[in-house]
């Protein structure tokens, strides 16, 4: 375990060195990342001023959820997308051999390969949204709910990882799926809306087969003091299913993988 943690630290340092090699790119990335937050601010300000709330969330709660969305965007984009977006090229150009022949688990090798260090903007805008949301609500969260939130956000990151990995692992079965990483990122974008706005069958799909609605929905409901023990249990169970399922798909893919001559 300590070997893997040390390797994560080394990959982080290498990513930092690479980012500092192209400093203009790094600072532009921070500006663009902040810009996405500004765009969310304009969109949701217009939305809540027109609608009052959204689904089961009132105005303040909408801003808090968007803040959580921007904070969770950091592991989704800075870690998972940064690593998984290269997986199709690794497979199609035979460079996956360089990962498979290393004395570490191959899933770890592709999952922690790269990090994007320029998402400071998301941390700032996310924190701003949460503060603004609670200002509208008029009272801070209960301490117990806030502590539950920290644990549930950790589980949400695991669920996001499981879903993202399960969606990119099929590149081992299909050629040239260069854009497969966009499947999860687009559905993650949709997770900032409450599931109540969808028709029942879509709600069922978004909480079971492709449970993006749970990533933010369950932590948010717990934070707002409306936890459902069934939903909490289901949240943990689904996370476990996707973590194991992604692994199963990956291992099955590796069994049929034949290098493209590296």
């Amino acid at each position: 375990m300590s070997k893997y943690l040390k390797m994560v630290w080394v990959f982080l340092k290498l990513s930092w060195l690479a980012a500092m090699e192209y400093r203009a790119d790094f600072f532009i990335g921070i500006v663009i990342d902040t810009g996405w937050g500004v765009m969310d601010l304009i969109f949701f300000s217009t939305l809540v001023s027109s609608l009052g709330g959204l689904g089961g969330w009132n105005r303040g709660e909408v801003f808090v959820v968007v803040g959580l969305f921007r904070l969770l965007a950091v592991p989704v984009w800075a870690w998972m997308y940064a690593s998984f977006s290269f997986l199709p090229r690794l497979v199609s150009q035979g460079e996956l051999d360089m990962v498979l022949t290393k004395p570490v688990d191959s899933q770890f090798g592709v999952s922690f390969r790269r990090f994007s260090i320029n998402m400071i903007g998301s941390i700032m805008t996310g924190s701003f949204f949460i503060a603004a949301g609670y200002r509208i609500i008029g009272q801070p969260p209960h301490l117990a709910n806030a502590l539950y939130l920290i644990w549930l956000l950790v589980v949400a990151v695991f669920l996001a990882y499981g879903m993202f990995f399960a969606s990119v692992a099929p590149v081992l079965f299909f050629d040239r799926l260069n854009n497969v990483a966009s499947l999860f990122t687009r559905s993650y974008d949709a997770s900032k809306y409450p599931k109540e706005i969808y028709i029942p069958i879509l709600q069922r799909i978004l909480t079971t087969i492709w449970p993006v609605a749970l990533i933010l929905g369950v932590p948010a409901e717990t934070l707002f003091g409306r936890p459902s023990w069934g939903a909490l249990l289901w949240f943990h169970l689904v996370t476990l299913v996707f973590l194991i399922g992604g692994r199963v798909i990956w291992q099955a893919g590796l069994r049929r993988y034949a290098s493209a001559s590296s």
Partner: protein
Amino acid sequence: MASWPAAVCLRQLMMAKYFGHVRISLQNTLAYRGPIVVWLISNLLTVVAMIFVWRSASAGGLIGGFTKPELISYYVIGLFFQWFTGWTPFYWLKDEIKSGEIVGTLLVKPISPYWQIFCRELGWHLVATPVGSLATLGVFVFARHSFVVYGLWPVVLALASSVLAIFLIFSFSLCLGLLAFWFTHIGTVDAAFWGGKIFFGGQGIPVAFLSPQLIRVAYILPFRYLFSLPLEIYFAKLSPAQIGQGIVMQCLWIVFFVTLFKFMWHRGTRAYTAFGN
């Protein structure tokens, strides 16, 4: 007069070269259909979410100058325009420049690089656009009760504007891709382009939702003419004079980016070195 048949033959030979590129690109697209399916699902996810967001609004009233049915129709029509006008050779062009493959694919070929790249994109879009149209039709059937149409002329003019938008986005994306002649790492350039298109281009939210100051900026930048202008024409949000101004701005931006492409190509190929091909 004696040279006229020779000129016609030469013209036909040149066209055959371009058609050859279209054919090869089409064959590649049909051989690797996966990316189209992924784009289809990804775009549908975004559009379906936005449709349900606006459906949850209470009926009546204007939201940013749009009625609720107009907002829902905006995203349905926008889905079609995303497929129809999404000509972005940036990704493979920058990769070919970085890897040196461009030497074999473009630099030593005796035809126009602009039109060769256009033909490669055409091959992809001959498959992607019908697929995207089918997807749009499916979403339309689902949202048909909220769908609005303001007559034949807005549709025709919007399509004409979107054809200009194709050339604009294509030329813009080409210029961004050619930055790879000088810079090793240009990923954030692409992110800035998409950020501009989504924010100032109306792909995320209608441009009308922005503050008056930002709308003025949007009217100056090219992003509005990539996506929002055809939609504004479709929804009859513009007077005939404003439509004319918008079309003229599209043409001016096309001329700008084509000129910029020629300049960057000329300077870039002089500065470029590659190895291993």
